[in-house]
């Protein structure tokens, strides 16, 4: 009697472990936190409207960790917000869509434009008071906020603004992009940086070198906005060993007008997608 119960539950467990519908594919990815909102939106649209049998899981463990996952085979693809480094050997980077890093201040700050040089000086601790930044209308000490070293945005900022010099010790390094937004929103003296997807949530994006941080300035090559970048998908090897379902998804996401709409809604800027035909 008892043996029967055990046997039945064992069979039930095995049955649960087998995918519910035959032919379904689950693609496993990990990596950039900055790319997560856009990727998740693409995933759900793809599963709902293009191919019901393809499912995705994505663990936002940071771009560098994602590439590691691809290298050791735990992930089939990774989202990555920085350009390839020598340590990424054995992987292929595919340009996926574009993203801009906006410099944000609190709405109480009157500043509307900032130069890369000024931003560099603030984050290197050379400018410490808003009175040293003309146009801010503030006389208070600057509270610079940034990401910790785990963030793709940190690496991009480090390369594009700080020339790979470490931020000074008065920069408060927070663990997530959302916390940076929160800090800027709540502190009138703060300045922070984060992706397009985070804009318009109680913080004010500045023009950088006179160019607005909006998708229209970022999408056109050559990239006019100084802090724009490609978001990459990273595949193992030369990409040929990836499952065909993944290849189809990448093609769809890079080319189709529908994917373009999804990307811009989620805060990214489509790079290669065809424009939707107007009826």
């Amino acid at each position, binding site marked *: 009697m008892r043996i029967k119960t055990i046997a039945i539950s064992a069979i039930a467990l095995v049955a649960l472990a087998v995918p519910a519908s035959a032919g379904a594919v689950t693609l496993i990815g990990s990596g950039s936190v900055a790319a997560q909102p856009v990727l998740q939106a693409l995933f759900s649209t793809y599963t709902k409207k293009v191919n019901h049998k393809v499912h995705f899981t994505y663990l936002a463990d*940071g771009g*560098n*960790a994602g590439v*590691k996952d691809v290298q050791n085979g735990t992930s089939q693809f990774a989202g990555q917000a920085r350009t390839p*480094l*020598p*340590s990424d050997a054995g992987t292929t980077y595919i340009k996926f869509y574009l993203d801009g890093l906006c410099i944000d201040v609190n709405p109480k700050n009157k500043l509307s434009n900032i130069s890369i040089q000024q931003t560099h000086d603030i984050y290197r*601790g*050379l400018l*410490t*008071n808003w009175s040293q930044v003309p146009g801010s209308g503030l*006389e*208070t*000490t*600057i*509270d*610079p*906020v940034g990401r*910790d*070293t*785990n963030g793709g945005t940190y690496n991009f900022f480090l390369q594009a603004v700080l020339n790979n010099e*470490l931020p*000074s*010790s*008065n*920069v*408060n*390094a*927070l*663990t997530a992009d959302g*916390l940076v937004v*929160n*800090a800027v929103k*709540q*502190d*009138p*003296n*703060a300045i922070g940086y984060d992706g397009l997807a985070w804009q318009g949530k109680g913080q004010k994006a500045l023009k950088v070198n006179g160019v607005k941080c909006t998708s229209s300035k970022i999408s056109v090559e050559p990239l006019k906005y100084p802090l724009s970048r490609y978001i990459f998908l990273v595949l193992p090897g030369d990409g040929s060993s990836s499952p065909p379902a993944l290849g189809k998804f990448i093609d769809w996401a890079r080319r189709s007008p529908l994917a373009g709409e999804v990307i811009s809604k989620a805060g990214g800027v489509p790079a290669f997608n065809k424009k939707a035909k107007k009826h």
Partner: protein
Amino acid sequence: MEEEYLSEYGPKWSDQRAGRMLGALVCAVVGLLLAMIVTVFVRAWPSFSHNGLAWFGAGGSVEEQLNQIYLSGLGGAEYVYTFHAWQLIWSTLLIVGGAVTIALFSALFVSVFIVEFAPEWMRNILQPVVRFLASVPSVIYGLLGVLVIVPFIGNHLVTESQKSSVAGVISLSGYSLLAAVLILTVMIAPLMVSIFSDGLRSVRPGWLEGSLALGVNRWRTTWKIAVRTARPAIVAGTVLAVARAIGEAVMLAMVSGSVAFAPNPADGLIFIYEPSRPLAPTIVKNIDSLGSPPANSTLFAIAAVLLFSAAFFSLTGWVARRAMRKYGATA
């Protein structure tokens, strides 16, 4: 013959089955613990052996050292291990020490009140509330800190002159020692209260009644007999709270300020507004550099220090409780 066989083997084994399985489970748990300790220390060893006792000392900026260590592991060049963790250790001492001290006194008074003085209906409300508070996940406290306490300190308590006096070195934006200590206190105090009140409740009623019968007033009886007898429970609760406070990473990473900086009491009042970063959040913040072998070893060295201090505190607690057993208390 058959009966003899049964009594020899059958019932005997069915008797012992549960005992042996549980024993094997305990062995597995102990083995797992040993394996974990060995792994952590083996991985940490290169960092300790390169720095010696200077690992615990001061010197240079932890941030820059961690960056050097991380970068050296990426190229083919020789690994750099130089690391002086004093800024992180000092921050841990300040935050854990401050929170445990405040929590110890407040928890003691609260539990004395709950056990000895509170009316029945209030006790019935307070006890479940305290139990619930003790089990709230730390990330919720972290969120409260980031959304309420940090902006309050940054916008209302810190003055502009204080901020400008340290401009360029650190920013006093509310992420501070004060926020970290306050929230950590709220986090560990309920744990202490629930253990303290269990201890106070287990004091033999006869002892208290004897004291009261001799005409000693209630406050003095509580203080001199109940609290004194419950001392092993107080030590046990404090040790548990210290262990939880030392290992707390998520909440502290959110509110303590995340800059490796050693707040200096000589700076005056500003000192409690200064940001710092304890040991455990440092691991969380640098988790991405685990791929670089020397950085991996350095982070495991931090983990080893945390593991060692947790073991040290539970051992001290055990010794202290043994020494107090002669007062006849149970805990």
